[in-house]
């Protein structure tokens, strides 16, 4: 692989040799703009570095730097009496995190909630996406996509709030608040993030494959198991990245409908705010990050990241 544009056919390289200009304009050194353009045209590497410069300064240096600083501070501690930061390396935060029963319970509960939300969304989203992509006539498809997209634009808080009203004791459902309410609300919030990648994956799946499976005698269930599911699996994983990650870090929904239950996000939040213990908050925050990184690493090979 070279630095040339990857769709360029292997023709003559774009040399700067003055190719007999037609008309009156000559490529002779015009203004500085022209010379700059010529340099940029010739040097793909330079073009690339310029294109990458600002984004990499922002995301690569500033953002990654901020993340790194946060995780370094997880190895510090705060003075018990004054509350000041003590910049000495210590594993105390992680030791406390791993040995304290409460934190283990909360971490497991958060992963459980995220997994439950992902599963619920998958079960609801797959049939919906399938009906949209394979059963609906093409004209209706466009409207169905709009119908699924619309709630994404409505505010996150508004939707969580809608469930607060629905679930409140004198509301329409009146089931009350708690962990179940949290799972329901989170599933509701992230459902479109699951539907859309699966829909896109199913849309890419040629109908001819389904027909071939049918012609060869496979029933619906068998076609699903041997054709549809393997080919849309990357899309499913892409959707699950959203639902899992968004649920794992949430602390707002829990506050709105969770009653007194707590997730990892709440522990981080409380340690930043009320307890003013940044090192411990940072240590707790490593838990969802490590889980997400492990998740991303595990699904990289499925090609899911191309489906995001």
């Amino acid at each position: 692989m070279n630095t040339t544009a990857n769709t360029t056919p292997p023709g003559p390289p774009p040399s700067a040799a003055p190719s007999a200009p037609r008309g009156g304009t000559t490529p002779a050194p015009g203004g500085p703009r022209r010379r700059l353009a010529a340099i940029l045209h010739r040097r793909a590497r330079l073009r690339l570095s310029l294109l990458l410069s600002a984004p990499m300064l922002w995301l690569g240096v500033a953002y990654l730097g901020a993340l790194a600083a946060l995780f370094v501070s997880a190895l510090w501690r705060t003075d018990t009496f004054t509350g000041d930061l003590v910049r000495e390396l210590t594993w105390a935060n992680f030791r406390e995190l791993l040995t304290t029963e409460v934190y283990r319970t909360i971490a497991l509960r958060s992963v459980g909630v995220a997994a439950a939300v992902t599963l619920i969304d998958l079960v609801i989203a797959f049939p919906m996406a399938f009906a949209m992509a394979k059963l609906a006539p093409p004209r209706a498809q466009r409207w169905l996509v709009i119908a699924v997209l619309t709630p994404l634009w409505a505010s996150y808080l508004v939707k969580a709030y809608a469930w607060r009203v629905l679930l409140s004791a004198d509301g329409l459902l009146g089931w009350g608040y708690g962990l179940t309410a949290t799972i329901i609300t989170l599933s509701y919030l992230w459902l479109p993030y699951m539907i859309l990648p699966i829909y896109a994956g199913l849309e890419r799946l040629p109908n001819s494959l389904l027909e071939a499976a049918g012609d060869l005698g496979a029933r619906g269930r068998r076609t699903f198991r041997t054709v549809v599911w393997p080919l849309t699996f990357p899309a499913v994983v892409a959707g699950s990245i959203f639902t899992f990650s968004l649920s794992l870090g949430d602390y707002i929904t829990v506050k709105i409908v969770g009653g007194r239950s707590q997730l990892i996000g709440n522990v981080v939040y409380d340690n930043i705010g009320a307890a003013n213990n940044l090192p411990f908050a940072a240590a707790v925050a490593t838990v969802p990050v490590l889980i997400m990184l492990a998740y991303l690493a595990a699904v990289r090979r499925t090609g899911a990241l191309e489906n995001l």
Partner: protein
Amino acid sequence: MNLSRTARAMLWAALAGGLAVVYVPLLIVLLNSFNADRTFGWPPPGFTLRWWEAAWNSTGVREALWTSIQAALGATAIALVLGTMVAFALQRHSFFGRDAVSLLIILPIALPGIVTGIALNNAFRAVLEPFGLGLGMFTVIVGHATFCVVTVYNNVLARLRRTGSSLEEASADLGADVFTTFRLVTFPMIRSALLAGGLLAFALSFDEIIVTTFTAGAGVKTLPLWIFENLFRPNQAPVVNVVAAALIVLSVVPIYLAQRLSGGEAGPR
């Protein structure tokens, strides 16, 4: 595909049921904004426009709305520039570490918002405090832009993939320099992708609360922060509900625009 009649009916039912579940809560918020009962007793004892009037006259709501619009505009502008640059770098060049760069761009939305939030909060305070500066609108915009880049990037990347670079090569062969080609060929090609991505970036920023909580200074209150703050105050509940209802109604505008602009392919990516 050999689908039995029952299977088809069940799939249609799942779609209809799913859409109903998606929309019923939103409709209830809309209805409740006219509910005469202050605590949204169900069924509503009567209907009133009182709460809409109260929300319209609330200075807190107006100021928060304006703050949100400013923050979203700033973040969108930055995301448009950065997202386009990365999309071009990754689509038109191949280089060592390309996968790492594309992973880096999705990282801010792949990681839980609270992690991005406290990391930025920590960094801002370490960098700004020595200069006597505090958190404010600027830090909110920086925070939002960080996770908005990906929406523009995805839209532009998809567009570049589809159009290829033959038109640009033709333009170069005809003697146009890099800037002219960008102005006359490349930009018109990606314009609608930029609009769709920008719209999505705006919506993401407008709605964001977690990163905002950690990057907004004392004086900056975006609409989501205002809503969250007033959510648990019983006497503010009707006004909060009206704001929620208004946001649901207003969300039709960007959808309509996105559909018009990108010819029906405005996804969240």
